[in-house]
């Protein structure tokens, strides 16, 4: 297991419909993403727990891409990963953000 933490400066976002959402499942090649609206002085924080060690730079790249495409502020993202590919990680992040904003359960 490897634990990684990332900080991103926030950008103003619309008030989300929900305070928290969870998407995905902790199963092989998949991950769960818990996205929560919390008070972080406008910034964002990401915690990753992954079974695959040594991929910190890839996580940094995938998360940077996500935060470059989407405006988020005061959001904490917590991830339990079982070897999801970068594409699946990107998909789950977008899915979580959509649910947070639209309020889909």
């Amino acid at each position, binding site marked *: 297991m490897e634990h990684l933490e990332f900080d991103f400066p926030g950008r103003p976002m619309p008030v989300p419909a929900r305070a928290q959402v*969870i998407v995905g499942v902790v199963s092989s090649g998949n991950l769960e993403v818990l996205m929560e609206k919390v008070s972080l002085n406008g910034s964002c924080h990401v915690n990753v727990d992954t079974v695959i060690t040594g991929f910190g730079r890839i996580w940094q790249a995938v998360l940077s891409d996500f935060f470059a495409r989407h405006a988020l502020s005061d959001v904490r993202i*917590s991830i*339990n990963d079982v070897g999801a590919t970068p594409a699946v990680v990107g998909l789950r992040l977008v899915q979580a953000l959509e649910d947070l904003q639209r309020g889909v359960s």
Partner: protein
Amino acid sequence: MNAARHSYYEATARQRLAALLDAGSLHEFLGPAARVTSPHLPVLGLPVAFDDGVIVGRGRLEGQPVLAAAQEGGFLGGAVGEVHGAKITGLLERALEEKPQGVLLLLESGGVRLHEANAGLIAVSEILRALLALRAAGIPVVALIGGAYGCFGGMGIVACCCDAIVMSENGRLGLSGPEVIETVAGVEEFDSRDRALVWRTVGGKHRYLLGEAQRLVADDLAEFRAAARELLRAVRPLDLATLEAEQACLAERIARYGDCADAQDVWARLGVQQPERLPLLDEEEFLQTVAPAMVRNKP
């Protein structure tokens, strides 16, 4: 216009629960943000899930208050660990106080989470105790089984202690799972990779024919919902007469089918015409085909 089917089998536990209950009615207890995760898995270098693989909560079904739990088979095969089990036990104990219309258990589990050993075993026994206390109080508990991982081990026992079971053909119910039987008794005894053999032995159709599952439904969330709603009205009293009747049923089953080597032999003895065709039929054709035999063999 045909309403599109939404597969129960393919859905996650969260999607199933959302579809089973009235839209937006789910109020989850100890949700993922509470982060009540397994204390045992990190010690073994294994990942945790924020809900420990089970969602428990309160909701409504056609306006009626219900409590419900849904196991996520994708996380460690839905196996019952200490936290996972405590959440289900807590839900059942809460039902005893809240007295909802009933409790729905969306089961998908290989049984005890072996990583957590004794804690998992104790958790299953606690679930059973809470379940029986609830039934003794006359609150119906309905099990729904239709996921990829089936319902085995301790959770197979839990399912059979419920008032009623709803299954799809895809669903599997048993004590020892096919791979366990093969490991213990050899491939000659049971070939767990023979899918036709596995499904005609532990699949939904066979469980329905034996009277263990009260409803066989298509792999469709709406059908599971309709069957659950209906069965919540069918309380099975937990008293001596019920237990004695069940015991008599089991004794009769051994007497009638004890020498059968295959589920097909059982179906033939039930009086089903062309029993070898049963696995090929869709739910509607299947239910029509077996209806005469089911009526004749009603205990």
